[in-house]
């Protein structure tokens, strides 16, 4: 089955992002296709590669990046939510004249249309948030 996931909360703030990760992993293990993981609102904070948690804590950002690399996951940050919170890729850096970018491997920034498309193209859309 084709599934999409929506994450509305940032890492280390609420369990939502951990639940979303565990669910996504379990769905892949069960043989389902993940069409897209869409990060909305504070959820975009899952996509900064500058995250450096203590060594004895899980690295939530790396965990998503690794899962994406292993299973070719499409991890999309909402552009409006990302701009507000300072999540920048090369394109956004150029467009908004910023002095750097911080997007983590496996993530990309795109519009809300990507969430709508995920809803249409997937058999199920599961939302995790606070």
């Amino acid at each position, binding site marked *: *089955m084709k*599934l999409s996931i929506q994450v*509305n909360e940032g890492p280390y703030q609420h*369990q*939502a992002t951990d*639940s979303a990760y*565990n*669910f996504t*992993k*379990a*769905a892949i*293990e*069960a043989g*389902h296709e993940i069409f897209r993981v869409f990060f909305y609102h504070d959820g975009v904070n899952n996509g900064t590669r500058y995250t450096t948690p203590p060594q004895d804590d899980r690295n939530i950002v790396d965990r998503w990046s690794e899962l994406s690399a292993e299973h070719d996951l499409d991890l999309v940050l909402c552009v409006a939510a990302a701009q507000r919170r300072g999540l920048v890729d090369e394109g956004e850096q150029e467009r908004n004249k910023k002095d750097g970018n911080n997007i983590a491997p496996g993530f990309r920034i795109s519009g809300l249309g990507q969430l709508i498309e995920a809803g249409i193209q997937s*058999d*199920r*859309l*599961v*939302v*995790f*948030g*606070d």
Partner: protein
Amino acid sequence: MSMLHTVNKSPFEKDSMNSCLRLSADGSSILLIEDGVFAAQEGTVVSDSVKEAMKSKKVYALQEDINARGVQGKVMDGIELVDYAGFVKLVTEHDKVQSWV
């Protein structure tokens, strides 16, 4: 058409569990996750309304979140515990998923 509802808030913190019980159709399923699992406990002020709901709806709770909060052993009869694989299975077995956050 059957729907899966997920509730992730403690019923003692927010009203989303009550809203879910009130608005979900008979024959639908409710999965308690995160702090929502507190609604699965026996002997609380919401136990009776959950029991009432279980006459027409199936209630599940996520084992991992139950264990994390130490409420295993206090779970009401009739509530089925599932792991993440079971969560995925519930999602695929129902036509739609509604998250009450």
